[in-house]
């Protein structure tokens, strides 16, 4: 930065809203155009309020994955203090705690990450396939089955 610029900087004055008001009374803040939870804000909020069941299903499947991973951890590590309390050879303690535990923990973690990501992919697929297929709007019209048999339109999906 050149001296010239430093000199220019020193001529600056600091301006803020408070300094702009000076002695003037602070005007009451204007009401925000939107509250943090506006009544009709975009699809995102609609999804969070309308889609409780979706969210709960996702939570349940994620919780199931988490509990499976934790269960594996408990089963693999939980009994270890009991086992090691037996008059075990010291080498076993070293092998189990000094080395063996780490790959096991990592493997469980790796499984969980893959499972959790798969759950999320499945979920995204479940929620979003519909909007991706809007283009095939009229392909399912060949069927003549009565209402509610569940067979109408499957053909277009398979295609």
């Amino acid at each position, binding site marked *: 930065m050149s001296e010239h610029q430093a000199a220019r900087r020193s001529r600056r004055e600091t301006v803020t809203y408070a300094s702009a008001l000076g002695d003037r009374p602070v005007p009451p803040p204007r009401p925000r155009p939107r509250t943090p*939870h506006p009544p009709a804000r975009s699809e*995102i*909020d609609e*999804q*969070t*309020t309308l*889609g*409780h069941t979706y*969210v709960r299903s*996702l*939570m349940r499947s*994620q*919780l199931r*994955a*988490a509990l499976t*991973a*934790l269960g594996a*951890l408990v089963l693999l*590590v939980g009994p270890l*203090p*009991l086992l*090691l*309390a037996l008059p075990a050879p*010291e080498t076993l*303690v*070293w092998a189990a*705690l*000094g*080395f063996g*535990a*780490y*790959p096991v*923990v*990592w493997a*469980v*973690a*790796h499984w*969980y*990450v893959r499972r*959790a*990501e798969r759950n*999320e992919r499945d*979920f*995204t697929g479940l*929620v*979003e396939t519909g909007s991706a297929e809007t283009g095939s709007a009229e392909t399912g019209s060949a069927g003549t089955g009565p209402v509610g048999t569940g067979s109408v339109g499957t053909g277009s999906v398979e295609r």
Partner: protein
Amino acid sequence: MNQTYAVAAVTSVVLATVLIGALGLRISRTTSDFYVASRTVRPALNAAAISGEYLSAASFLGIAGLVLVQGPAMLWYPVGYTAGYLVLLVLVAAPLRRSGAYTLSDFAEARLESRRARRLASLLVVGIGWLYLLPQLQGAGLTLEILTGAPDWVGGLLVALVVTGTVAAGGMRSITFVQAFQYWLKLTALLVPALFLLAAWYGDGAPRARFDAPAVLRDHTVVRIADTVRIGLAAPLTVTVTGSVDSVAYTGRTVTLAPGAHHVLGGTSLAFAPGSTLPERAADGSDPLGWSQPLAGGRDGHQLYATYGLILATFLGTMGLPHVAVRFYTSPHGRAARRTTLVVLGLVGAFYLLPGLYGALGRIYAPELALTGSADAAVLVLPDRILGGLLGDLLGALLAAGAFAAFLSTASGLTMSVAGVLTQDVLPSRASSRGVRHFRLATLLATAVPLAVGVVASKVPVADAVGLAFAVSASSFCPLLVLGIWWRRLTPPGAMAGLLLGGGSALAAVMATRAGLAPEGWAHTLMAWPAVWSVPLGFLTMVLVSLATPRRIPPGTPAILARLHLPEEITGAAPAQEARR
């Protein structure tokens, strides 16, 4: 040990930290590289940063010391520190990131929509931060004492000053790169000497470390007892004593001590002939090294209880450490947070293979450290003891530099988190007084309190002191995070009651034990390892009080839970930058 190299190494680490803090490590880019500059942090880099901040010197020095004194059962510590990230991964990582919270207090406010819950969480963040800073400063003091012979408070003061200075002066400007670098520095500082030491050990005929029998000294050894100890002898022992044993003063006289207990006054030197058996410390409640005794076995039932207490505290406590939570904010989205945690698991696990190794080598080559009360220094003295000469000095200096870097990185991360929370929620503030000066005051407070407490409080092995912070975190923030993320009926009163009762009782038990108020026997064990009862207490209180106050369920709960769990593709909260190019 040659002090020059070690002092030079520590000085250069301190200088580098000050410089980085003062100048700031920024990435400068011109327009053409804008894309690089606006790219979010990759999981691997962020994971190295998290690991760098997490792997405190207190933990790795402490673990090696505990293994030296008490054997491989102490390896539960590193296993717990690592597995804590697994629990964090499966229960917390992605939702915590998606909550948009920066600190744990932010999470409490976001989930519970309550300012009071936020303030309570802030108090706990500060408490846990201080508990965790305590062993960092203590360990730094010990390291400097071993290296230079300075009084044990000097190292703590040095770290506190450097950290307060750099954080108050504007912080680590780009903390991710600094901390990621620290991880690799620590790993190198521990790995390279370990390879040399292993080679020397192999060349020595690979002697086995024995923990089931008293250690046998290999050379003529002079042990200087720092604090008064009681030693127990199984067989008669011939030593040359300068000082006082059993209230009898000696000056360089060779005496034979009969089997049984003996009282050795602090400051006494004992000279052992090669091949003599090292006497064991006789533990009692007031003996700081007796702290982990239950874990290593001996008294009926205590061992299992203490082990499970340690497992619960470390497995569940990691998620509630203030400096761990804030690092997740850097991940661009929940999926990246998960992957980051997976890499952290790998990095932390790889690192924790080493301290046990140092402990075992210490048992073979420097068993007398168990007697002197400075077993935590085992890592630092081993190169000199095993290799000696210039190589030993250089490797020792490398280890000292790594340890000091670790003290600085963990302490600065903790100080930043604690000072941030103090500024926002604890210190009284008006809109006008917020800002830089306020933050500096908070930084000072954040380091001064643990420094002062460290001088006053009783010394416990640093690994145990770290474990205490985990116990409090596991009993307070673990229930808050887990229930907050997975249970829709959590209410602010429930959460606050759980935080108070779980975290408060664990904190009280820990404080009482540290102050030496805990009675002997089971009471001591229960209070020293509170997690077994305080974690269920925290969960239970939270659940029961929440169920009793169903009308206080925050109105935004469904929306928040949706945001915590929905992938960003659906909520659209992820940066869209990966879309093109």
